[in-house]
Structures are given as C-alpha cells and as structure tokens.
C-alpha cells in the first residue's frame, strides 16, 4: 500500500538548515489502522504532509500502490486515492458544506448522499448541508465537516492530522466511533492517524512513535502501547480535553 524509502525533510530558518524528518523508512499494509504518536515538534504532522504531497521531500521516495509518487503533486496524489484531513480545517466564504462534499466526491452527488456523510460524523444534515463553511461554524463543526470530506472521497489511504484537536468530549466519542466504523468497512482502505489520544491508540493495529524526526518505536499496538502508556507520548482523553 504505502512505502516510504529513506525520506528526509529539511527546512531553512535563521540558524541554518533544520532536519525535521531524518531518514525514515516505513511500510504500511492495506487495510491497516496505523497511529503515529510522539512528542510535539517530533515531525509527525510533517511526515503526514510529505505523504500527501503538501510539503516536498528533501530526500527519499514515496511508493503508493506500487507506483513511485515522489514527483507527483498533491492533486495527483489525491486522485490516486490519498486523503488528508487537516488539523485546523480551512474556512471558505461562500462555499457551502454541500459544495465542499461535492468537490470531495469529485462528482455531483445528491443532497441525500451528502447528508449521509454528515450524519456519519454526527451532524444533523438538514441544518448544515446549505450552510457556508465560514466563520459561523464552530471548531468542532468544522472538524466534523473536514472528516466528512474524507468519507465522501472514498480514499485508499486516509490521513488524519490530530483529529481530536479542538473538539469537545462529546465529539471525541463520536470521532472514535467514526474511526471504528471506517476500520470495519472492508474496502481495503488504510487509515493513518496522527494522535496523542490513548483511545485512538487503543484501536490501532500498529503504532509508530516518532521523535526528533526519527522512528523511535514501531510495532503492533499490543506491544507498543504498554511501553508508552503514561509517558509523554500519550494523553489520557479527559486530561487532554478538560
């Protein structure tokens, strides 16, 4: 499904070159639920963006479904089936929720189809479908709409960058349910989530711990989770959200 081969990402700042991602190699199988965790500033979000093509690789290559997509734009990667849910979803003046879901689906879906995606993420469809994706929506509402755009796309690899950030406890419960449901659906889809949340880590097949741009630990949930629980790499849901 996805192979990262010796990838690196360097950025420039005032003090020179900073190595954000250092020589990471990684394999993700089809139909796996993988959670990347680790301390803030360890390179998690950058890694996710490198896979989606939002940031360019400095070194290495990305192989997706047997194809080298290293040189492809984010548009082409999206077309090949990579979906990306942003940590801080973007607002659009004028574009409605329905418009956004239609763009995501890549075709003219009916209002009732669009409503199904919204219901999936716990939003009452008729209240939201014609609303603009603008500042009138709360952070939690935006987050759910962001996730609905991924559901509408029917991707092969869905990447979620800190989906729990900025949502309330009720939404968080719902989020877990969405992930469990996505995981159960046997479409061969893999899910890659950047998260600190123990409850998200707990439904993972595999956990990757990333720190200082390198993979610190990687393996099945049952092996990795006991090693990291209660450390800086995980956050208890109530502690983090209250």
């Amino acid at each position, binding site marked *: 499904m996805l192979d990262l081969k010796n990838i690196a990402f360097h950025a420039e700042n005032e003090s020179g070159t900073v190595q954000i991602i250092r020589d990471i190699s990684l394999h993700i199988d089809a139909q796996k639920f993988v959670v990347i965790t680790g301390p803030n500033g360890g390179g998690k979000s950058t890694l996710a963006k490198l896979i*989606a093509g*939002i940031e360019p690789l400095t070194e290495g290559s990305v192989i997706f479904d047997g194809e080298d997509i290293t040189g492809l*734009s*984010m*548009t082409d990667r*999206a*077309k090949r089936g*990579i*979906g*990306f849910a*942003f940590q801080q*979803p*973007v607002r*659009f*003046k*004028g*574009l*409605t929720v329905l*418009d956004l879901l239609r*763009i*995501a689906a*890549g075709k003219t879906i009916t209002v009732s189809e669009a409503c199904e995606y919204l219901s999936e993420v716990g939003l009452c469809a008729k209240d939201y479908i014609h609303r603009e994706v603008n500042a009138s929506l709360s952070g939690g509402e935006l987050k759910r709409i962001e996730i609905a*755009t991924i559901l509408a*796309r029917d991707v092969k690899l869905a990447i979620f960058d800190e989906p729990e950030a900025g949502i309330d406890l009720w939404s968080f419960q719902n989020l877990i349910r969405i992930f469990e449901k996505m995981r159960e659906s046997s479409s061969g889809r893999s899910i890659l989530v950047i998260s600190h949340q123990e409850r998200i880590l707990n439904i993972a097949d595999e956990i990757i711990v990333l720190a200082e741009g390198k993979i610190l630990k990687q393996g099945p949930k049952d092996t990795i989770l006991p090693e990291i629980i209660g450390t800086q790499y995980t956050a208890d849901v109530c502690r983090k959200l209250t």
Partner: protein
Amino acid sequence: MNMDAIQKQLLQEVADLHDIPEGAYNLRANGESVGRQSTANIEIVSKTEGSGIDIHIKPGTKKESVHIPVVLSESGLKETVYNDFFVGDDCDVLIVAGCGIDNCGTQDSEHDGIHRFYVGKNAKIRYVEKHYGSGSGDGKRILNPVTEVYMEEGSTMEMEMVQIKGVDSTERTTIAKLAADAKLVVRERLMTHGEQRASSIYKVELTGDGSSADVVSRSVARDRSYQKLDMCIIGNAACSGHTECDSIIMDEGRILAVPSLEANSVDAALVHEAAIGKIAGDQIIKLMTLGLTEAEAEEQIINGFLK
C-alpha cells in the same frame, strides 16, 4: 419578436430568459423596443420626452414580475435610457433588469441606464440587475448604470446587482433615501478582469426612524483590472446601517475600498467593514488535497465567493 442568436444569448445571461417572459416586460435591443407587454396591474408606457419607459405598478399588486432587459449587439451604439418605476403601496413584486453588450467591432458600445424607483408604503420589491459583456472586438463595452431608490414608510427593497464578466468600463451609482421603517438590502457581486475598470458608488440616506440598510459587496479583481468601491451610509434618524466590502485581489489587480459612515442623529447605529486580500494559500491546498488542480481550486473559491 425579432432577435438574433447573439441577442438571445445576451438575454439569457442578463435575465435568465430563454424566451418571452411571463408577466409584464419590455425588451430593448440595439436602441429600440422589440417587445412589450403590460398586464392588468403593471402598465409600461414609453416616455413622451426622451428615451425610456415608465412602469406603473398598481397598489396591492402581489406576486407579479416585470422584466426589462436590454441587449446591445451593434458596435458603436451609445444610449442613455431613463426608466422610472412607480410602485404602489402594499405591492410585492419582482423586477428583473440588466444589460448585455456584445461588441465584435472596433467602436465602443455604451448603455447608460438610469433607473428610478418610487416605492410606495409597505411595498416589497425584489430587484435583480445583471450586467454582462461579450464579443472579441477592440471596441469597449461600457455600462454606467444609475439607480435611485426613494422608499416610503415601511417599504422593503432587496437589490441583487451582479457584474461578473466582460464589461470593460463601468461606473455604477446607487442612491437611496429611506423613510421610517423602510428597509434596504443590497447584495453586489463584481468581478473584473483584463484591463477593466469598475467603480461602484453607494450613497444611502436613512432619514426615518426605524429605517435600516445592509449594503454588502463582494468583488474579485483579476489580471490588471481596477475597482473602486465607495459605500456611504448616512444616518439622520434612529436607524441602523451596515456596509461591507469584501474583496479578493489576484494577479496585478487593484482595489480601492472607501466605506464611509455619517451619523447626524445620536440614535443612528452605523457599522462598516472592509477587507481586501488574496485567496488564502491554505484554501487552495485544501481543495488540491481533494483532487483539484491549483487553477480549478481558485475557480471554485471565486465561484463560491461570488455566489
């Protein structure tokens, strides 16, 4: 009704009309009236002096519409037309105006329409005005509309003003005077491209207690085009006014936004907002991760913004 294919296309762009509209209408093509219909409640008559028409809408007329589109397809034609609307008390009507110019020649074509609305007590008007230009000639397509609105007590007017494509030069002026409890809502959408210049001026005077105005303009300036948005609300009574210019600039586009307020009564509550900026990079990135190209993403963002 004699209209050629280009004229019919223009008619569709400015009035969403494929054919003869229902209700009252006056169609003007290349400086002449080519079709007109009055109804029992709406009478359209030519002005005895000068060019233009008077539209008389009987008091109490409800759920009727008037279409008065204008199309110009002859290069070099310049005209100034006066259309006066006399809307009786307690009416509830839709008025669709608009002008389409197709200029394939080398001479400038210009239509200056002066619309005056005398809106009776408690009448409710929805007014839609679209401007559109097409044609590949060097001659300019020029539209300078003037809209004057005089609103009596308790009347309501919603105005939708749209100019999205193809007009080289425009200076649109809208003046409104509102009596007590009258309400004016304006939604303007403007897009300029190429070397176009557009100037949009609003002067809304709230003279009666309880009157209100909400004037919102969304605009996009592309290529090397220039826009000036000058929106002024004057409050002379216990009234409320809000004006907003929200603009996107692209390429080498330029915009001057001049929202202004004048309060002449201690009970006037007036607000203005103005924002100009380019399309946010993260909006484009989000749509690209949904599979759109950069150009497609920009189009979607602009279409949504101007919708």
